[in-house]
């Protein structure tokens, strides 16, 4: 079994602030998805507040630190949450991702710490 990070992507829908009935239905389906897939989720991760609540810390090449109101990348699509899923392989992870009721998912490998140490 391998671990995969699911980055749940939003397309600008603000589920926390006056969602339409259609969006509420998707949100309810997402809750169901987490129930159904519970056994495959090794770390529930978290659901993020919308990007309008983001704060970004930028570091210049000289080491100067700047705090900015807003996300790192201004874009309609953004990461809305994370979970860590366990699946036999990437194909199985993709099959799970395809059942996601929301907008989309980016699937990423998870780096095991010992792996990184062994590499360097």
């Amino acid at each position, binding site marked *: 079994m391998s*671990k995969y*990070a699911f*980055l749940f*992507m939003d397309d600008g829908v603000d589920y*926390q602030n006056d969602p339409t009935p259609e969006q509420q239905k998707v949100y309810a389906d997402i809750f169901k998805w987490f129930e159904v897939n519970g056994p495959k989720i090794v*770390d529930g*991760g*978290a*659901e*993020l*507040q919308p*990007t309008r*609540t*983001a*704060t*970004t*810390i*930028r*570091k210049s090449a000289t080491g100067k*630190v700047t*705090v900015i109101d807003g*996300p*790192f*990348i201004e*874009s309609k*699509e953004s*990461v809305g949450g*994370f979970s*860590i899923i366990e699946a036999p392989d*990437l194909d199985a*992870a*993709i099959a799970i*991702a*395809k059942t*996601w009721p*929301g*907008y*989309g*998912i*980016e*699937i*990423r*490998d*998870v*780096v095991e*710490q010992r792996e*990184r140490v062994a*590499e*360097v």
Partner: protein
Amino acid sequence: MPKYMLMFVGSDDWYDKQSKEELDKAYQPIMKWWDDLSKTGVIKGGEELGMQRKATSVKRVNGAMKVIDGPFIESKETVGGFALIEVEDLDKAIAIAKSWPGGDVEVRPIVDHGA
């Protein structure tokens, strides 16, 4: 106490340019930062993500899920890892993000479902 997600900004480019020695040197303070904050209970979870070029995405297009070989958003910089932290307030979360020995960080409050 509220929870915040620290999203660490990274790029495949940066990794490609580092020698094994440079990577080792860059990771030492990061490991220490992670260990210290885990021991004090600030870090509740998190992961380091693999290369962006190895990403696979699924995206809803006209109602159906389409599989895309690659990242969701084409961009040089991406989420390279994340840490879930629990601290008093946003100011404290920003202070922790500033102490991250790596690059840029996006701080996001998380949705509390009362669980």
